[in-house]
């Protein structure tokens, strides 16, 4: 637990108890609970707060060890902590779970107050916009007027863009990583195949399985396997598995698991079912599919018309074919056209989409230096008792931890 924020616990914020929370779909939700964690200390004028947004299957537990359990590191433990990219000595870091999730926030597995039973498919469809408006309530609750920075990768990056485009006055800088301003047809297609795998599982029972002996684990596992493939690259799979066989000398000419890659996918698919809810998977993938920042205004540049004061650090990865670099470049072009201050790098990496969790050194350089600059230009005071120290690189050369993190929470 060296250089870590150490033991942390998840907190909860409930709102919309009296007045329901209106969703983009026109539906309402009441009450709404958000799980969140915070690390570090707010400074005197509350100007050092950074919001971290998580990806599809992430949680509020981004850093430290949950309730002190060494087997439960946060999903971005390598980038959030004392002396790390998001330096908790200097910044007050918040990570909020999204609505629709199964990690403590209101979602399809929550109890519907109208029926006293889990929502299941009666849970309203939520959007990235809804997730972010719920986070705005949390930031209000924490008494923070403006966030120094909003950062996140993948679906977290979509939330970052949503914050910048729709709540620009609440944000001073934004770090969208390995993401897109609109979910492409290919991304929707992968989402849909994952959802179809869940629908096809008889145990899914149209989302009504919470009190049944069997959950749609088989369907969810296949959905996760498909997702997992899209987070890797051919090169990383070649390096990781090659054509190696799993515990076999030669081909068996049968349909048992033979190749290492098959075994890996099966294992991870199955492991996922122990920590994630199938209905949440449906809702969150749907939210991503609806994401199209240019939609209401007609153009991406128009979407950022009021975001010209925000400083952006846009990061993509060369081998990410799920959210390819040209999606980020399109974003950079639009931001440049409106006159926003944009720093952009397409980081050379062979890790595919997962690179945003694995390229720790480059990320630490980029994010750390970018935040240094913000502190200087926006005159952000450190919290009381802050003593500067050198920035850490490769905090844990422990490749196992990295692999573990990537496998658990892409």
């Amino acid at each position, binding site marked *: 637990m060296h250089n870590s924020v150490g033991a942390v616990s998840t907190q909860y914020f409930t709102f919309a108890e009296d007045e329901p929370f209106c969703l983009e779909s026109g539906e309402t939700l009441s009450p709404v609970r958000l799980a969140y964690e915070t690390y570090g200390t707010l400074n005197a004028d509350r100007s050092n707060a950074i919001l971290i947004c998580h990806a599809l299957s992430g949680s509020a537990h981004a850093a430290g060890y949950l309730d002190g359990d060494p087997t439960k590191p946060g999903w971005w433990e390598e980038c959030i902590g004392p002396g790390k990219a998001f330096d908790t000595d200097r910044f007050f870091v918040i990570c909020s779970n999204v609505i629709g999730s199964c990690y403590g926030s209101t979602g399809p597995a929550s109890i519907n107050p109208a029926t006293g039973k889990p929502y299941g498919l009666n849970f309203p469809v939520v959007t990235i916009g809804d997730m972010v408006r719920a986070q705005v309530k949390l930031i209000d609750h924490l008494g923070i007027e403006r966030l120094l920075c909003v950062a996140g990768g993948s679906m977290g990056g979509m939330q970052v863009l949503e914050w910048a485009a729709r709540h620009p006055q609440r944000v001073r800088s934004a770090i969208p990583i390995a993401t897109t301003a609109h979910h492409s047809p290919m991304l929707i297609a992968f989402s849909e195949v994952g959802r179809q795998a869940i629908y096809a599982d008889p145990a899914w029972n149209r989302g009504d399985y919470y009190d049944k002996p069997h959950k749609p684990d088989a369907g969810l596992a296949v959905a996760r396997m498909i997702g997992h493939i899209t987070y890797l690259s051919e090169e990383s799979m070649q390096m990781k598995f090659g054509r190696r066989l799993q515990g076999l000398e030669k081909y068996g000419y049968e349909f048992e698991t033979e190749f290492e890659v098959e075994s890996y996918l099966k294992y991870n698919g199955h492991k996922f079912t122990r920590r994630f809810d199938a209905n949440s998977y449906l809702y969150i993938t749907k939210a991503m599919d609806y994401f199209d920042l240019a939609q209401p205004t007609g153009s991406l540049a128009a979407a950022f018309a009021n975001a010209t004061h925000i*400083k952006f*650090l846009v990061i993509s990865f060369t081998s990410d074919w799920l959210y390819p670099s040209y999606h980020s*470049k399109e974003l*950079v*072009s639009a931001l*440049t*056209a409106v*006159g926003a*201050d*944009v*720093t*952009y*790098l*397409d*980081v*050379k990496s062979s890790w595919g989409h997962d690179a945003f969790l694995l390229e720790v050194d*480059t990320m630490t*350089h*980029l994010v750390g*230096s*970018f935040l*240094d*600059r913000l502190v*200087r230009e926006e005159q952000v005071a450190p919290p009381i008792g802050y003593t500067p120290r050198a920035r850490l690189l490769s905090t844990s050369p422990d490749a196992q931890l990295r692999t573990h993190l990537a496998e658990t929470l892409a």
Partner: protein
Amino acid sequence: MSAQVQILPAEESNQVNLRPDLLAIADLVKPGWRVLDLGCGDGALLEYLRDHKQVKGRGIELSESGVLACVRRGLSVRQGNLQEGLADYPDQSFDAVILSQTLPFLDNPAMILNEMLRVGRIAIVSFSNWGHWRCRLELLFTGRMPVAVDLPQQWYESPRRQPFTVTDFARFCRQIGILIDQQIYLNRGVRIRTGRFKNLLSTTAVFTLQKINPP
């Protein structure tokens, strides 16, 4: 397009470790200007302009190492090639757009210069001069293609470059409707008064450029 070429190291001048042509460029920039540096490398010029001239600078750089170095200096820089990068900026969004020691490496210099003058009020360029007397004598006496004094790169080394002289550049600017305004001539990093013999005596030229008939 942002060329990773070896350029002569800076001489120790004014205690600032900046390449001489970059120092000359910096002298042409007025305090508080908005500046875009094309192929900004490790960001040394932009950092100097920020610290000494309160310039609001942006950079475009192709190499990852260059971008990382710029970010470390606290600069705003975009990775990409010049053509794509320039296209995104609105008309006249900068006071000056800078292109240092990159002209011989461009595929379409007319297009880039015109773009620079669309995006910026003025352009500032620096380039090595193959018209210097040493280059002329080298070809005459050795029969070998001359290597520019301030750009010691052999013909077979990539990236490919097109050698040209101060006179070539002046003719080219007239053809494409660009006016050469301020002119600084360097000989091996030292500013020189050239009189009529600019092309013969300078190893590097630094010019500010403008559109002849701005709209």
